[in-house]
């Protein structure tokens, strides 16, 4: 029961945060230059047409009414229609079409970075100040300081231009079509459909972007794991475990790692927001049509409904990830469940 009440308390705190985020977005888009009414009308419109369109869009109401209708619309699924990126396409459809691609990119990078990052962090803390530690720390420092798009471009130059091993951008080879739509995630769909060549081709396309994102995230996880493991390894219970005769591997993985994971989980949760930002830059470098690309186009074109939809969506995502991280805290460390 305490676990459930812990989760409920967390959710209750997050609801006002969500509303404040929505209010902030609404205010920002109200301040934005550019007139959506004018953008939807042909150039030689009359004043009557302008008023009619304004009434259709609901923009002639006072601001408070607009705000409440905006909140109601957002929660009822009507996110408006984008008027610049793809004219007339509902925002929800646009986001849902592109969101799986970004999520696949992000999730793959997260998995690779977490797996290898924790391993290198443990090795770094075990061989403190020896050559393994110094080399991993050097890589981690470079990974934290390198710009994503620059790394992507260097990898593109090396692997796509010089060596010609991997394609330089995009999601798919234009000759292959799309698999049958089951989940929207290209990898799962192509495997369900039985078209293995499509899955392999997809892997080769996303390998470089995933490597870029994973390298940077891996650096952060390695640093955090190393520092928290170093702190844990000085504790008394580790000495007890070694004195009891446990193998070093058991001491490290069973006793030390479990306690060291809490700051690492924090970093992973915080880093997910950073991964979404990195996905924006990576999609710009590798010219993939994902959600990051959509964000940049939306803001360049001042598309209000699209911006609203994307900000709401990303805020929901980050809140969900934070909730997951908090729940993971409760799972890993029973002392935190108050």
């Amino acid at each position: 029961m305490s676990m459930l009440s812990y989760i409920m308390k967390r959710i209750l705190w997050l609801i006002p945060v969500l509303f404040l985020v929505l209010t902030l977005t609404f205010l920002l888009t109200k301040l934005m230059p550019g007139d959506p009414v004018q953008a939807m009308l042909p150039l030689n419109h009359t004043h009557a047409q302008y008023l009619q369109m304004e009434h259709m869009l609901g923009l002639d109401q006072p601001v408070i009414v607009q705000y409440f209708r905006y909140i109601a619309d957002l929660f009822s699924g009507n996110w408006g229609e984008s008027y610049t990126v793809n004219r007339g396409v509902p925002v929800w459809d646009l986001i849902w079409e592109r969101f799986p691609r970004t999520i696949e990119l992000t999730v793959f990078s997260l998995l690779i970075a977490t797996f290898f990052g924790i391993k290198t962090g443990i090795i770094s803390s075990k061989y403190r100040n020896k050559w393994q530690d110094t080399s991993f720390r050097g890589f981690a420092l470079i990974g934290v300081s390198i710009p994503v798009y620059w790394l992507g471009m260097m990898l593109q130059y090396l692997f796509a231009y010089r060596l010609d091993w991997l394609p330089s951008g995009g999601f798919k080879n234009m000759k292959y079509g799309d698999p049958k739509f089951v989940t929207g995630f290209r990898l799962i769909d192509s495997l369900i459909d039985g078209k293995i060549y499509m899955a392999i081709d997809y892997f080769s396309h996303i390998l470089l972007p995933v490597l870029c994102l994973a390298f940077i995230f891996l650096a952060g996880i390695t640093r955090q794991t190393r520092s928290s493991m170093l702190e844990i390894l000085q504790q008394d219970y580790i000495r007890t475990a070694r004195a009891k005769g446990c193998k070093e591997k058991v001491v490290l993985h069973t006793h030390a790692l479990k306690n060291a994971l809490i700051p690492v989980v924090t970093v992973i949760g915080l880093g997910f927001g950073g991964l979404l930002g990195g996905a924006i830059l990576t999609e710009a470098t590798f010219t993939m049509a994902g959600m990051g690309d959509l964000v940049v186009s939306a803001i360049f074109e001042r598309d209000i409904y699209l911006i609203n939809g994307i900000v709401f969506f990303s805020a929901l995502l980050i809140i969900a990830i934070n909730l997951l991280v908090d729940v993971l805290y409760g799972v890993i460390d029973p002392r935190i469940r108050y």
Partner: protein
Amino acid sequence: MEKIEQQELEEPIEIRKEKRKNIITYIKFLLIPGYIMEDLAVREFEYEKTISKRKFIRRLKSILTIIGIGIILVIVSFAVFAPWISPQTLEETASFYPNPDHPNQWPYSPPSPENPLGTTHFGRDLVSIMIWGARVSLSVALLSLLISVPTGIIIGTIAAYYGGVIDSILMRIVDVIIVFPGLVFLIVIIGVFGQRLEYFILAFGLLGIGGYARLIRGSVLQARDLTYVEAARASGAGNWRIMFKHLLPNCIQPTVIAFTFAIGGIILSLAGLAFLGFNDPEQVEWGFYISQARAEMLDAPWAVFWPGFMIMMTVLGFMLTGDGLRDALDPRLRNI
């Protein structure tokens, strides 16, 4: 007389042999890396055992930290002395048109004696781009941190010290800032208010408040119930005095370290925004040149490589210094 002469003759030979041994040892010491002279090593070890590691400067002596501080000094000198070091003036570097006075600077020309790193679009010299770009990055980073750090510290200290309802309200507001997707928020602010450097500084400043508030709040929560606070209250100190004269100096250490890392982070974010196209058109920013040179990357890879390399080196310097600072300030590593 003969005995004395014999003795005088024998000594010089022994002394000569010893001198020869010493010279050979010194030459070996100079030329062979890692050669250990025992008596010197013993004396060094004894000295290291006696000197105290409590002095802060001695704890910064690790080689990586010194490299980091060196890089920061180089970048700061680039920023401060740019008009004197750089081969081109700021107008030439940041202008929109090719320079008619230098017809030899073709766009995207390879490294040559005139342009040691090559040129980028419009024939701008890469060395001057690297030097002038340091100004924008450093000024944005430092000024935005000047906004976010004091605000974050004040909010965090007040929230943690008073606790209760004030704590909850302030932390929810801070959560809003943290939960809002960062890059999207920046891009929206720039899109709304215009592409000028002041708005960048403001946006970064607003975004950074949350992190420092949380850090300070954690430290002050731990230190709030300690005895010295009670003693200060008993001697008649008011709340604000306790907060800012007694609690804050003891709780500020994680913030100092986060400050150093944040400078690197802001420089990276600024370059990322410039890459996407959200930059101040009148300023020299490294990310902008990366995006411009992307079209010619296959023919002119130097135009893409050097600005990115500069970004990496700058951020690396701050990260190295931050790491060294964190290890030096760590209370558990005292008196090693």
